[in-house]
């Protein structure tokens, strides 16, 4: 692998223009031992993993980390292709149109399966029943944070604020929005949602005291929490994440609002049995690599390497549960 890298570096300096173009054209993971051509995985053709988010985000990084190990095990190149748009629905739409031969996969965000459908119009979010699911990947936690000088440290403090509370969300139809809407509805707190465009603008607004609180993915806020620049109020998983074990969960605080971001590998519907088995084994091997486990830990991700049936079951019941609780409290995720 090292020689490949070195060669590539020199190529970069030398024929940079041509290389940059060709790199751009393949647009993905240039690593991967692709020396075993035409072996192992059904056919020697490369595998493309679609990502419905921008390069550099958590979903993209997870896809690239898994691709590395998958490529090593299956002996074919695995490239990651970013196709951002509509919370990932654009990439999902493309996936549905591909041949079910195992050579096109997608890292699918749980929020697109069980939260976005509650916020956007009928038919604007894909249905997971239209896909085959290869494996679960990992879980990401949301944490409710506030600036230390806001004077809030617990949910009770927020309830006792004596004024409407503003909360920043990372966008409409996200776990960040759902987790807070559910919490404030159950705690009977008068609160206004202020949607931002993603995690880091939300983080900025909370740090600067522009909004009172915000719900952010753990990996994006952990540094500020550890530095004491943000106070963590609650986390939203059923159990305390190991990365933030001294902060109570919303469930412990007495509210029934388990919300997590989950990710899984999807394939077009109709994957042959042997291809599915080969892929599952390939991913299992990737999960066992130390580099991948270290990656999860560095990014505060909890492994959730369950099989496709369990992913489908969990996500379907999540959607039903959220739909009923949202109706019960009269919450509008996407207002008119």
């Amino acid at each position, binding site marked *: 692998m090292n020689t490949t890298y070195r060669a590539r570096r020199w190529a*970069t300096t030398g024929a940079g223009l041509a290389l940059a173009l060709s790199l751009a054209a393949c*647009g993905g993971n240039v690593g991967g031992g692709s020396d075993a051509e035409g072996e192992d995985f059904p056919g020697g053709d490369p595998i493309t993993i679609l990502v419905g988010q921008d390069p*550099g985000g958590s979903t993209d990084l997870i896809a690239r980390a898994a691709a590395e190990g998958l490529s090593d095990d299956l002996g074919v190149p695995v490239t990651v292709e970013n196709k951002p748009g509509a919370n990932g629905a654009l990439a999902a739409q493309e996936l549905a149109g591909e041949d079910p031969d195992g050579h096109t996969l997608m890292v699918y965000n749980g929020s697109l399966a069980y939260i976005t459908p509650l916020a956007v*119009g009928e038919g604007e979010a894909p249905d997971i029943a239209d896909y085959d699911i290869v494996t679960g990947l990992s879980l990401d936690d949301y944490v409710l944070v506030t600036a230390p000088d806001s004077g809030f440290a617990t949910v009770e403090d927020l309830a006792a604020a004596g004024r409407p509370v503003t909360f920043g969300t990372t966008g409409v139809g996200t776990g960040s929005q759902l987790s807070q809407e559910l919490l404030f509805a159950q705690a009977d707190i008068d609160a206004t949602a202020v949607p931002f465009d993603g995690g*880091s603008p939300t983080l900025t607004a909370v740090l*600067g005291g*522009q909004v009172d609180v915000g719900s952010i993915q753990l990996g994006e806020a952990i540094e500020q929490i550890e530095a004491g620049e943000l106070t963590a109020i609650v986390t939203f998983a059923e159990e305390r994440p190991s990365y933030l074990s001294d902060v109570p969960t919303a469930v412990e605080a007495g509210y029934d609002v388990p919300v997590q971001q989950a990710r899984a590998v999807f394939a077009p519907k109709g994957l042959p049995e042997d291809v599915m088995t080969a892929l599952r084994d390939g991913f299992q091997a990737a999960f066992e690599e130390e580099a991948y486990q270290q990656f999860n830990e*560095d990014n505060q991700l909890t492994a959730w390497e369950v099989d496709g049936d369990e992913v489908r079951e969990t996500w379907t019941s999540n959607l039903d549960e959220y739909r009923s609780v949202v109706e019960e409290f009269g919450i509008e995720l996407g207002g008119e």
Partner: protein
Amino acid sequence: MDTLAVDIAPVLDGFTVVLEPTNLLYCLIGVTVGMLVGVLPGLGPAATIAILLPITIGIEPVTAIIMLSGIFYGAQYGGTITSVLLKLPGEASSVVTVFDGHALSRQGRAGTALGIAAIGSFVGGTVSIVALSFLAPVVASFALDFGPPEYTALALLGILLVSTISSGSRLKALVAASIGLLLATVGRDAFTGGERFTFGNLNLADGLDFVPIAMGLFGLGEILYNLEERHTAAQAPMKVANVWPSRRDLRQSSGAIGRGSVLGFVLGILPGGGATLASLAAYAVEKRRSKTPERFGNGAVEGVAGPETANNAAATSSFIPLLTLGIPANATMAVIFGALLVIGVSPGPQLVTEEPELFWGVINSMYIGNILLLIMSIPLVGLFVKILRVRPAILAPITVLITLIGVYTVNNSVFDIVLVIVFGVLGYLMKKLGFDPGPLLLAFVLGVLLEESLRRSLLIFDGNAAEFFTRPISGTLLVVFLLVALLPLIGKAFARRRSAEQQNDTTKELV
């Protein structure tokens, strides 16, 4: 943290880190790759860094990040080249460079424009790094004081500037800007999830992207227009002379470079749109200060020097929120953030104290990188300018091809290629009818910022708009906005009255 500005030892340690041969080499590789992707329309630093991420895994964190940041500011240099030579702005922050840069190029002074831009970028970058070294922890909180209300005021001010920078008719500029604002509303509403002008097409759900619009309106539109020109008048390849700026050019632009450095540094700290606003503001300032504003748009050197200095200074200062607060200020910073995580470094408030070697290594590598870029540009400017000697019949199709490939690579989207063609036709029609596409594009960029910030502010204020004036920064900015908008009108009204009624006593008192 406060002692940071005084404690010089880690700063010097940073230099020893940079001067290690490996790090110097990677710095060189970074800026070279950056410059080259900057030259390719569409393919930006964010995508390139993402693509090169796997390469960084095997090497030292400091080395990796030195290379990646080199790509980022190298691309700022490269982007100027296409703006000037081919009228293809790769990023929102180099749109204003097109106005005078391309005009200079048509006069055979492309070398002057590129030379001034390189010098301006170098000065802007360097000033910004020096400021960054000494002020980073102090000014970081400035970014946090900018909430939605402040951005609203800033965007309003920016849109006002847009209508004044156009060189043609004021009315046509306003029409173009309005179309830009309208285009900014396309996409899924960020507050309700409702679809706006998307016609059920998921490709439009996130709104229109800046790159295809810019490539179409300017690059493709220009090529189409020139094709038609060729039939009416035989067009020789552009003449290329004056490779280097004259002493007079340098004198003319020295003020612009100074002002651009300061504006760029300050506005670059703001997450989202900072660099665009900086280049826009620098251009408007130069035009307003000039005794001969009519030269702007027709090849004024200051019109290249100001914004080019500002966007490079802004690119550098946008590292401040990332390195001190752990907040990525733009798309490229977000990818660098991701890259740091991959190599096992978490950017955040503790970075300076926990990893001083990395922090100062990166910052000091920027000094070296900027020097390398300046040295490289000298021979390269001559080389790039030669592109213009190529006959249009050969150059145009190649440009179109590279543009379309470049745009495709941004989102791997065929839809974006269609967008380029649609906006290319629009750009052609606008040029034919005497409309300047600049205001359209800038209003489009600022329109998104204005709408979202305004709606966020009103949510925060619970609908009470008066609170805009009770916050110090937004209040001040709005007063400036009102002054800039109303003063010329008031002045004009008085002038008219004076000439009409010939009685100046009362008017003078009022003034």
